[in-house]
């Protein structure tokens, strides 16, 4: 059989497959009737074998290219992306996210230390010499913050101002967390850098405001959303460190192979952290600056911290878990 025979023999079937494909691509498989789908499947099979034959006989030929494109299009119809489901979201928040966090527990600990130690050191240093704070964080911002916390929150803010600040926190803080994670691609260095920098600035600012005598205002403001926000930044950093760790020491796999295996786990941690930051932004925008007395804020804040720690430590423990990807 010559090429011309091969084509004329099968061209009608290929045309038909293309027709059905156009239908499917426009409307989706759900809105196409079963008879057509059966025909589609049958045509897909024969075209796959046509492609295999074209490939063995004359690789690189335009017939091969043509068949390759149709088969790829048909293949895409067989593997649509999984649709979002509410149950899946619940499963993610109640089981998968905390489980994934615990799997990289050592990195979470490392990230927490990289964040908390610089924070504590900066805080101690600034408590000793307040003027140091001007070197550790932008001076104008520092004065603005001090002024803001000096006023306290007895009166609360207007609701619309709350919305403005919520928007600001979402934009700023979640962005910081994402950068904390993403720059881990540079062998973890970026994550280390961002964790330390944010720790130092946070510690310096907190201690500066406290030594200026507005400690109660500041800490009562920060305690509630801090439970979610600081934890989430540490988790994002931990995911970044994990990524860097795999690049430095991939074990018996290639660097990319090791990363590839771990990607879904990292994605779960980072998506969960994003969800936590969203919660944090809402608390930070609407509750933290409210007129509620500081004692209430401390009590609720403590409860939120307890909740976050309890959640990350215990949620999903009773569920049967697939074994983690093997690295060594």
């Amino acid at each position, binding site marked *: 059989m010559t090429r011309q025979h091969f084509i004329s023999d099968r061209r009608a079937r290929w045309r038909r497959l293309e027709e059905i494909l156009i239908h499917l691509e426009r409307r989706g498989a759900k809105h196409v009737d079963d008879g057509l789908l059966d025909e589609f499947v049958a045509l897909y099979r024969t075209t796959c074998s046509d492609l295999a034959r074209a490939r063995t006989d004359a690789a690189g030929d335009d017939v091969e290219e043509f068949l390759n494109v149709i088969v790829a299009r048909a293949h895409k119809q067989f593997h649509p992306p999984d649709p979002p489901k509410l149950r899946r979201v619940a499963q993610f928040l109640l089981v998968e996210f905390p489980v994934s966090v615990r799997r990289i527990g050592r990195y979470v600990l490392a990230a927490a230390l990289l964040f908390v130690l610089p924070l504590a050191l900066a805080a101690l240093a600034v408590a000793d010499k307040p003027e140091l704070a001007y070197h550790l964080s932008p001076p104008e911002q520092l004065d603005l913050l001090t002024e803001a916390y000096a006023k306290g929150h007895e009166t609360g803010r207007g609701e619309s101002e709350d919305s403005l600040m919520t*928007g600001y926190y979402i934009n700023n803080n979640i962005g910081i967390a994402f950068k904390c994670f993403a720059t881990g691609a540079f062998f973890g260095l970026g994550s280390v850098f961002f964790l330390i920098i944010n720790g130092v600035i946070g510690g310096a600012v907190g201690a500066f405001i406290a030594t200026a005598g507005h400690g109660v205002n500041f800490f009562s403001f920060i305690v509630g959303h801090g439970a979610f926000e600081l934890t989430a930044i540490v988790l994002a950093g931990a995911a970044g460190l994990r990524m860097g760790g795999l690049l430095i020491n991939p074990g018996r796999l290639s660097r990319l192979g090791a990363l590839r295996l771990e990607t879904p786990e990292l994605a779960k941690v980072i998506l969960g952290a994003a969800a936590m930051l969203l919660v944090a932004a809402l608390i930070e925008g609407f509750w933290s600056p409210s007129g509620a007395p500081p004692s209430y804020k401390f009590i609720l804040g403590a409860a939120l911290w307890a909740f976050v720690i309890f959640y990350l430590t215990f949620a999903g423990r009773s569920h049967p878990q697939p074994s983690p990807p093997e690295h060594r």
Partner: protein
Amino acid sequence: MATATDHVENVECRVAVETPEQIQLSFNLAGISSRMMAYLIDIVIRGTVVFVIGLFVMTATGLAAPELGMGLMLVIIFVMEWAYHTVIEWAWNGYTPGKRALGLRVVRTNGVAVDLMRSAIRNLLRAADIFPFAYATGVLVMYFTKTERRLGDLVADTMVIREDRIFLRDLPPLPSGLDEVPLARYSIPRLRGRDIALIDEFFRRHHYFTHDRASELAEILTEAWLDRQVVARFGPEKVLAAVLVHARERRTSWSGASR
């Protein structure tokens, strides 16, 4: 056998993929420039969305609650920066409006659609690819990986492919009098598909070349693998055409029962 097409291999960016159901597919990888164009289109769309919603929100909240409007704006800017690519690529089978316009699509390296996790990873890692400015890291990484992938693609195990539409073509216009060329008398090496495709392409573009340039190119194409005598006698273009027809219609190929 060394032929004129050996060096072409490096220019063509294709990857072969074996799908879970054991079908061999090959994909054309998208290059830096087309991906950059797609990104620019998406930037324009993102900017327009922020601008239009911004106008709407600002007029709706007006002077009564300017902070509420600003708050909403910041959320929209955030969503457009961090969620636009992730959500659209996941929900629209690897396309974004920009990618769609350029015929590009994101797939996993085994050829199947991206899921939310992978879409999120590849797009959050833009923060690393963009470092320190203008996607310098991403472009460098793409330059040094054979499969044109930036950091986000490498970590998420994805790639960006070109979805070309191919049409079956008949033979291009060929010089006449090919029967005179007695190919059977000379040993013509068995051609690979790529070689045939190159000769085919040469004749398809023949009318773009001046007469001299065409014979010059044909001379290069016949160099090193076609008999010098036959080339000298019939001219390189005619011999190439004869080889093409011979390869296209040889009887041993395309065998197998038809259903």
